[in-house]
């Protein structure tokens, strides 16, 4: 019997505007996320993590992996912001890796996707965004890190959009911290109502606002 997993996808903008401290913050954020989650017995039993990075192209740098087997990805900042490619890749990953309920197996919990971007998309992304939003195959949380990202674009992908006014290490760190709280919280109250708001998220830290 296969276990029910909570698949978590991190979609991280690694374009050249993230160079320097921001990308270092992302690396440390991933580590801190792993450390936080590995102190939660529930997360250890259920959370599976995957990392998709995007710059001029999109790549799944870590396949969906059990938390305790997860190896930190090597990430570098360079290039453009191919959000459309990232969204299409995400959809492929979700379809390929996430188990649905069937007559013989209990499906995974509905995946959580954390999308972080600091800039404007440089490719065609609108159709992929509409597609994802309409299909409802994951609970997507988008984070506009700093003034360069357009919250309206992100709203086209998901209803849950957060933003910070600055692309500061504090905000990125806070976002990853909040991410781990959200994962733990989702893992705990996985029973959600089909018709209602998808997930119960913790309040964001002061540097981050929810975009209504």
């Amino acid at each position: 019997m296969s276990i029910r997993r909570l698949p978590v996808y991190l979609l991280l903008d690694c374009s050249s505007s993230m160079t320097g401290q921001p990308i270092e913050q992302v690396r440390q954020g991933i580590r801190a996320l792993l450390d936080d989650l590995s102190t939660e017995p529930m997360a250890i039993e259920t959370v599976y993590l995957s990392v998709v990075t995007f710059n001029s192209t999109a790549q799944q740098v870590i396949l969906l992996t059990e938390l305790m087997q997860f190896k930190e990805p090597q990430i570098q900042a360079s290039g453009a912001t191919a959000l459309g490619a990232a969204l299409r890749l995400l959809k492929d990953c979700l379809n390929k890796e996430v188990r649905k309920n069937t007559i013989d197996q209990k499906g995974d919990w509905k995946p959580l996707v954390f999308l972080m971007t600091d800039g404007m998309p440089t490719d065609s992304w609108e159709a992929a965004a509409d597609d994802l939003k309409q299909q409802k195959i994951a609970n997507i949380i988008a984070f506009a890190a700093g003034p360069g990202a357009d919250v309206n674009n992100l709203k086209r992908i998901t209803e849950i959009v957060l933003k910070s006014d600055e692309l500061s290490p504090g905000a990125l760190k806070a976002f990853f911290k909040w991410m781990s709280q959200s994962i733990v919280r989702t893992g705990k109250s996985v029973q959600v109502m089909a018709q209602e708001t998808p997930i119960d998220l913790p309040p964001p830290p002061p540097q981050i606002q929810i975009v209504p």
Partner: protein
Amino acid sequence: MTPFNHPITLALSWKLGAKLSSADLALAQQQWPLIHTWLLQNDHLEKLVTVMSCAMTKAELNVLLSPQRSPHSEHYTEAFSRWIKLVHFVQQTKTNVAEVIIRQATQWVTQNLANSSENLEDVICSQIRKRLYLWNEHPDSEPRSKRQFLENWLTENANHLNRLLEEISKPLVSDELKMLFTDNMDSKKKRQATRFWEQLTQYLHTHLHPHLIDTVIQETAVYLERHLDFPKQNYPLRSENVESTAVTPVDSSPPMTLSKPRFPSPKWRWQPLPEGRDYHPEYAHHSLTLPAGCTLIAARVRGKKHKHEGTHCDDWFEIAHSGDWGIIAVADGAGSKLFSRIGARVACQTAINYLTEKLSTHKISPRTHWSADTFARDDSYRFKEPDLELTQQFLHEAMQIAYQAVAKAHLARDDSKYYYKALGNRDLELSDFASTLLLAIHTVVTFKDVHYSFVLTCQIGDGLTAALYQNKAEASVLSDLEKHGFGGETEFLTSSARKLERDYLSSKTYPFFGPMRVLMVMTDGVADDYFPPAQGMLRLWGDMVLNGILPEVTTTAAPLTEDQLNRLQGRKHEYMSLEERILEAGPHPTPVCSSTPYANLLNLSLEQLLASPWLLTAGVPADIKKNGLTYEERLQTWLDSYQVRGSFDDRTLVILFKNG
């Protein structure tokens, strides 16, 4: 001096929980009073504790604090990750440990930073914070020149780094170590310290330093070597080649066990139920005797996640006997709703009361002929036979009345400030009482001297009801199965008024008629562990027989062949494991048997085994047979003990079975 060799280090190793041979242990115990006296003189204890604390974190901190550090190296990354893990772990017990570390380190640097005309405390504080990744705000607001101060100072004075490292290490473990080495302490504090130390070393062993205790002992030995004022005396010679059998000492302050945990995971905790209104007992079990030689047993347990978080069990069940009928109600309050347990309880109680009243004189009419046609239903799932349709109507009315009662329970609490506050300043909504509801009623019809069970079920939301045939290893699932979508998406009694309509309820109603061995009604906490149900429900039943939860199945045939008896001989551990039942006093090892490995042991398929249930009875271990518990108590214990990865929901199971 090598660790474990010198009598002093032997004694310390023993105190720190290392496993010693019996000869070494005797030596260690003999030396301890002397060492203890010496430690308590002057500030030896203080120093020793610092050395030991330091040994636990030195490697990481050296890398992190060193002025020569290179933040992008793999080395650095690893050290950082280990340090953060350690701090997080300690923080779970000592909440403000990061702050204490910062304060202590800053204080030390400020005091020792000579020739500083400026007030640099803030800068030092934020720089240490930054180095240790304990900061929560942007740390780079200070002028560069000031930041350079700390850096230069640490570089210029090599021993400063070591001292700083000591200051930082101390708050993590020093209190606990002190307690361990000081025999005449308040026993409560000492117990806490022992517990913390035990958890910490276990954690460090699992996650960080596999040779931690060796390192600690080594460092300690070096320290002791340097302190020459330790009284010299003639130690008895240590006998070489002593057989190194680990012995558990029976001393009043025994060492902690450092055995590795079964899973490389942090421990599941047990936390009490929250204070406040709407008390909901953590456990429940109950049994009832029914007509026609049937018995109902039921139990529910608080799931591991709720124990861990100190939140309520959201499941509820009620069972009743009325007239010819056995009545079962099971409900699972939504995990995401703070007061869903009220919905679960009110729904069960209301439905049970209603059905008890309506079924007390209700009978299934005797018939000269029973067939599939008897149970024929029309396009909207109404039974064509009036007595059966009336039964279905009662069931649906019970569902509707349960919904109304939950709505009433909502209104009764609606204007209460208590709930408004508990929900973080928002009004109570009906959906806060969201719960599933599973109803099942059972009666026995005798036809041509054969007992047939008639079961009718109705269910809103997840969970499962299944009946097992008496004469064949086959389960009849009396619930809708989730066929698409993701896990955890379910509907609730309170989801919409549409649920109240008879057409909808009829589509959720399943009948069973036939010779029946057992009827099982459960929340998804159990159903998910036995998925898919067609085969899973048989395995569930097999597990219950094997765990002594159901009466023995007897047979005139010899229960086991000689070959099978031989196979079973002394191999109980292959199908019985000791699982950690999470109780208030801590994890409690509890025997749990599984039918799949048992079938393997007998060289049978699971289906073959279940078709010969007396074989299961033969496998019930004496540990369970003789534990003096009732069936329902065993059910509760088992529900609370069996382990499935990723399964930590509340578990409720109601079983109706024929005696003998």
